[in-house]
């Protein structure tokens, strides 16, 4: 997905000469296309994410669109106050892109796991939070991110993620995409883990449970209507996110459901609220932490049967 991101951004930059990239030593192997094509619109500030973000803010305040880009937590947590006070407070047109959300860098350890990003970025006023699920969403999300006037956080996948959508999609910021319909329960996913939720729906189907699947590619602003419709039209809601179980997609959906009242059975599938000291590959860690499609399906069944 990261290669696709860079290709699409380059295409857009061909037509929009106000797009700048501000980097901090990371991205090599992917960003050369932009760097070589637009050397005047490309800055590498060295390993200095705080400065990267502040500079991007200033570049944007001069009437441009500035994209910061790095891996894991480096363009978010390492420079959080620059994002808050400089980018968001100024409503600066800065796009913050991370490669490898969640446990994508598996064996590299906790420093390289972005597992609180959705909650933290979501808490910042004026920030749009995007986490595309597959290549189709990723491509549309780059266009939407550039078209949106203001701060956007973009959580990009790391490798060749499977396609969630069979055909063309209608991607709009703040509008969930229904991947499949169902009447028994709704699985809401965000980011690349949504594919596993989709697979879980297939397993549930074979067990006689019809699951609706929503791809909530925009965690903020959240699609309240889609959440409320799910609560009304299906019997239970399950969120699935590659993120600490606190404060991310599950938290956002819980806020909507709780305020609406009605008490629909609800479950958050996410990472435990503890650091992942376990070392291993991305997929192995996901399976270990309950994201195997069978495990998601089993959790959903327990919820439906009132056994959670």
């Amino acid at each position, binding site marked *: 997905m990261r290669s696709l991101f860079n290709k699409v951004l380059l295409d857009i930059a061909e037509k929009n000469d106000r797009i700048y990239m501000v980097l901090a030593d990371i991205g090599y192997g992917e960003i050369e296309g932009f760097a070589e094509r637009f050397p005047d619109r490309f800055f590498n500030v060295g390993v200095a994410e705080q400065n990267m973000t502040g500079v991007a803010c200033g570049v944007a305040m001069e009437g441009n669109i500035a994209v910061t880009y790095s891996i894991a*937590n480096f363009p978010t947590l390492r420079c959080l106050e620059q994002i808050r006070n400089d980018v968001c407070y100024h409503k600066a047109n800065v796009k913050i892109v991370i490669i490898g959300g969640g446990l994508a*860098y598996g064996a590299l350890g906790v420093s390289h796991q972005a597992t609180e990003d959705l909650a933290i970025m979501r808490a910042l006023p004026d920030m749009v939070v995007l986490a595309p699920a597959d290549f189709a969403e990723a491509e549309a999300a780059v266009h939407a991110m550039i078209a949106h006037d203001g701060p956007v956080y973009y959580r990009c996948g790391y490798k060749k993620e499977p396609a969630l959508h069979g055909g063309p999609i209608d991607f709009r910021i703040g509008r969930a995409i229904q991947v499949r319909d169902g009447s028994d329960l709704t699985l809401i996913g965000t980011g690349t883990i949504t594919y596993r939720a989709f697979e879980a729906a297939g397993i549930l189907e074979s067990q006689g449970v019809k699951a609706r699947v929503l791809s909530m590619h925009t965690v903020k602003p959240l699609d309240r209507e889609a959440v409320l419709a799910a609560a009304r039209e299906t019997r239970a809601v399950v969120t699935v996110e590659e993120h600490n179980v606190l404060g991310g997609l599950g938290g956002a959906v819980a806020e909507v459901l709780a305020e609406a009242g009605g008490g629909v059975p609800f479950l958050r599938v996410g990472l435990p609220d503890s650091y992942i000291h376990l070392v291993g590959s991305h997929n192995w860690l996901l399976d270990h932490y309950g994201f195997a499609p069978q495990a998601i399906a089993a959790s959903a069944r327990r919820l439906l049967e009132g056994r959670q």
Partner: protein
Amino acid sequence: MLKAAEELELKRKALQVRRNILRLIKAGKAGHVGGALSMAEVLTALYFRVMKIDPARPDWPERDRLVVSAGHKALVLYAALAARGYFEEKLLDTYGSLGCRLPGHPDMHKLPGVEASTGALGHGLSIAGGMALGLRLSGLPSRVFVVMGDGELAEGSNWEAAAAAGHHKLENLVVIVDRNGLQISGPTVEVMTYEPLEERWKAFGWATRRMNGHDFGAILKTLGETPFERGKPSAIVADTVKSKGLPFAEGKVEYHYWKPPAEELAQAERDLAEIERTLG
């Protein structure tokens, strides 16, 4: 002066550390090789000569501490800890396996001898400064050593830490900058220059020296003279070669992170065998 026999012994240890680095990469099929190899002599000197440590008692309060601030240098840390006997070398063969104790960046809760969990650049110097302060407050004579990358120096937090260490006269703090001249995106002085490097540290209240980071005579002499000045922390700029020991990779930016094809791995093994041959 370092005696010839002693120097030979240290060179053999450094070779063992390099072999351990290769062993890790072989097991894990990839790793941050360049910045690990450039610190092989420095970590060998620290663990086998300079630091007051006891591998059997990694929690001994009076030990000296090493914080590897550039956490991607984990492989040289694991390699040296294993060579020094903190754990069995065969643990290195588990690198990259599911559930292993060797993450790509060090986790102090997983292995004895790892003093701090690092991985995001620009944190280690502050932590080490805090340890040095804490040791002073406890009245312990221990010292804190820090290994940093030269690209890492671009993080502004380092200079906050440097200022505080100078201000508080942390004489028990010693920084070694691995001046291998490269970071991910190219030569460090071209990406974001830090020159004049020694002057920078001096301006923050540090005493500085420069040394050849692959020459045990120079390393032991320089480290032996720390603290260079009363009432000042010490900064050592170590001139090194990234990927030192593997001529095909030396000084090449592409070997920051290495996923070795079989033929390169074989070449690396031959290169280390050649070092062994020259040591006699």
